[in-house]
């Protein structure tokens, strides 16, 4: 099972078109895709890091 990193709900549950739009435009991930925990996110001028307490850190692509 995977979760939407914008709204934290199951990917298979409902339409996430709006979530994808926001994630592709102006939002870093906020929820872990593996467990839906809220992540600690640090936005910097040229990227972001998102840390899940169970699944570790994700870093934006350069």
């Amino acid at each position: 099972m995977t979760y939407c990193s914008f709204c934290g709900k199951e990917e298979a549950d409902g339409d996430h078109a709006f979530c994808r739009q926001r994630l592709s435009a102006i939002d870093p991930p906020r929820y872990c895709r593996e467990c839906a925990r809220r992540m600690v996110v640090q936005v910097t001028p040229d990227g972001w890091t998102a840390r899940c307490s169970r699944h570790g850190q994700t870093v934006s692509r350069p």
Partner: protein
Amino acid sequence: MTAAPEQIDVLDEAREQVLERGVGLTEAQVLKVLELPEDRIPELLALAHEVRERWCGPEVEVEGIVSLKTGGCPEDCHFCSQSGQFPSPVRSAWLDIPGLVRAARQTRDTGATEFCIVAAVRGPDKRLLSQVRDGIKAIREDGNDIQIACSLGMLTQEQVDELVAMGVHRYNHNLETARSHFPEVVTTHSWEERWDTLRMIRDAGMEVCCGGIIGMGETLAQRAEFAVQLAELEPDEVPLNFLIPNPGTPYENYPVVEGAEALRTVGAFRLALPRTILRFAGGRELTFGDLGAKQGMLGGINAIIVGNYLTNLGRPAQQDLDMLEELSMPIKALSQTL
């Protein structure tokens, strides 16, 4: 029988008053501009651009910002995803000093002259001020001479003096919206408390950066009121944000400001503030897209935040720098600001 008084067109008035004499529009005039029909927007933007060129020059001031302390704010600013009072997905985070130095370097590498250190707080405590002091020292030791601004909430006189001593040259503290609308947006502190901080900043010799957010349910009359209240403050810079309806905030379902309305607002604010640095800030990506950003730059804007914002992402810095090159707009050099 007496003849009806001739209606004077507000853009004709603005041409004589703002462009020729450098006198900003009154509240009533700003409202008329905000009510202009859509087919007159190109004319408005062209005039606003002329005003900006006449009274500010051709340069564009580029700035980067970073959040030193994210989330967990005790205040209830209804637009803000960092308030601890709403069920926002934004969690608390502190940026360490090496991270701050890297962020300042990334900003400097874009050609920016300004780097603003921001914290989501009511006002700074000793720990935060100490972190800012250490951060500025580390940025300088990294050989980075970028101008440093701060946005740390409401200040005491002692804190203002400390920031001056640290070499902070500009302080951001947004009034956010018109005085008459502010109680609908924030209930944990007042517009007047913000105003008091701004006066202290000005009196201490720091540059004042003060703007707000468009699209928080204010009427056009309140938008005009806000423009004129900002003009009364005589800020060095006005950052113009457009609401990003962020999840979990009371404004999460508010509509994104429509492009034409946003452009009208840009033009109107330039005509109210002919000599001020008017900066494109958050929300422009949603409101304008790529095309509108150019129109805004040709409609009175003379500064931008490049790269990401505090909790939201912006366009890649290079995209904005390419846009400025395409528009033949020179980036203000650091040597001009020192």
